């Protein structure tokens, strides 16, 4: 029993890192553009496929193709912003969130259908020579690939933190996130900031997808499930705050894994849902967010 609990805990923490990575992109898009992109999971899915095909067709190791996947999804994100989300940012904040929700909902359907058409509905996983290797520490087995994925998540979080807090661009992003009118008056080209931020958000989704297709699996329909997890994490960390997202992700992963030991694996999704509803009801500002007056 102890072994089961420990193993579950570790697996939960590892997948929690992935939840955090996925949530980073979603939080960035929401925090900066005030746009809720529920198609974030579909971007993740596309990143997963990009990685998969890079490996299957050209033999590129998924860790090596990470920068390429980031760039590819970054560009796709910029493209989506230009043809779609740019128009949503015309609205004031309330309508912006509502309409982006509806519109990205439509995007979910479109991207999913396209994926089924071009990739088939089959589940894919990347298998390299080392993908079944694992460390064993005491009673616990830690798959190498998943651990590496966790590390990637940490690196991404640190990099994003550095970008936002130590660079001129990051300052402009934070200013835009706080008040885009004020930012424009300071000389910030808000539309450009939106575009780049959205691109980065998509890029982050892409590398998350990459790690997921490697350590877990990818298929056209995985998008919404991951978006849901990301949403829960964003709410847990505090809507609009970037700090603590990775920790919130790990918290969710851990809670889910431990609850699954009691309730059974088939009901894991319900755990995330319950956590979400509880936090939204009792502490809507999340663990790290600031309470609104």
């Amino acid at each position: 029993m102890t072994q089961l609990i420990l193993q579950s805990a570790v697996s939960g923490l590892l997948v929690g890192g992935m939840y955090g990575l996925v949530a980073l992109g979603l939080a960035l898009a929401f925090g900066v553009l005030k746009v809720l992109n529920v198609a974030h999971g579909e971007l993740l899915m596309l990143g997963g496929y990009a990685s998969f095909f890079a490996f299957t067709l050209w033999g590129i190791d998924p860790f090596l193709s990470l920068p390429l996947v980031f760039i590819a999804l970054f560009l796709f994100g910029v493209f989506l912003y230009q043809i779609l989300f740019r128009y949503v940012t015309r609205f004031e904040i309330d309508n912006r969130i509502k309409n982006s929700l509806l519109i990205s909902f439509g995007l979910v359907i479109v991207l999913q259908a396209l994926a089924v058409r071009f990739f088939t509905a089959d589940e894919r996983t990347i298998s390299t020579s080392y993908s079944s290797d694992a460390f064993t520490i005491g009673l616990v087995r830690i798959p190498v690939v998943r651990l590496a994925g966790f590390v990637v998540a940490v690196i991404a979080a640190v990099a994003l933190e550095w970008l936002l807090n130590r660079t001129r661009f990051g300052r402009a992003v934070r200013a835009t996130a706080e008040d885009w009118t004020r930012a424009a008056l300071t000389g910030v080209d808000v539309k450009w900031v939106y575009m780049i931020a959205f691109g980065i958000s998509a890029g982050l989704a892409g590398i998350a997808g990459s790690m997921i297709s490697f350590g877990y699996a990818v298929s056209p329909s995985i998008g919404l499930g991951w978006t849901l997890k990301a949403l829960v994490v964003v709410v847990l960390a505090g809507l609009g705050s970037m700090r603590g997202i990775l920790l919130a992700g790990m918290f969710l992963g851990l809670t889910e894994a431990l609850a699954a030991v009691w309730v059974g694996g088939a009901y894991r999704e319900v755990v995330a849902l319950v956590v979400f509803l509880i936090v939204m009801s009792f502490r809507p500002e999340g663990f790290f967010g600031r309470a609104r007056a």
Partner: protein
Amino acid sequence: MPSVVRWTIVLLLLAGVVVLGLVTDDQRILTIAIQVFMLSALASSWNILGGFAGQISLGHAVFFGLGALVTREMWLGGTSLVLSVTVAVVSTALVSAILGVPLLRFRGIYFAIGTLAVGVAVFLTIGNIRPGISSLPVDALREYTFTGPYYFTLAVLVVTVVVSIWLKQSRLGLGMMAVRDDEEAAGATGVGPLQHKLSAFVISAALAALAGASFAYFSVSYYPNFPFSVVWTFEAITVVFIGGLGTIAGPLVGSAFFVILRDTLPSGIQELQVVLFGVLFILVVLLLPGGLVEGGQRLLAALSRKGPAPPAQQRETAEKEEGKRL
């Protein structure tokens, strides 16, 4: 248009549709018709919560799926269809009441996100606990005709439309629309927002379950989690937006348009039909707040007046629709 004319048209259409089921054997026509009825019913049920009460739910498929699940399992287990459907609708209504109380405390986007979360969680969980395909047993397959499902689904649609019409004219419905337009003001004048939202939620769920029952009755074989899929929610919402949010005819018009167009597309494009309608949905949300029905009304108004309405009025109407949307 005057109500006598309107009612005559409705009765004629209804008669036509009833007769259609009797005279034709063409499977394709019957299938399209059934799909139109089903989607119209589902969309109308969503419209009650989204259009009348103004609460945008992204998890509507949960109730459609539940209705289908309970009906299917009971009916294939030997219970009569009528009893199965009744139990399905009642149990779904109960579930919706239980879910509605915590969910409806959230407003606006938080409600939408909450319902989306419920929808995804339930879809995935049903997929986990009922992975095997659900098929009609062999003898039922041999005897399968479209007639039963055709009239059943039509009856479901009629019931849904009747409830919608009644609701729109009732005090309850008026209260819902007051809550939609301005929740604070409604509360201040004694219209309890939570009661009205919850009523809309439960009625909408019950009708969705009824539509789900028709799906269970009509479909030969499918994976049990399919009716829980977010695609159903999406199609219902698309159709309501295309046809006109908050109107009675809107969901029907939109649904007919959607299903018929989808079916008449050449087969190469047909695979990407969903893509097409996703794009259409997005455009409608961005550009045409009132959907086809408003577009049609504006066209009629423009034709009957000397010219188009003055800009200020148009903008005001558009802004009201905009605000009504969510």
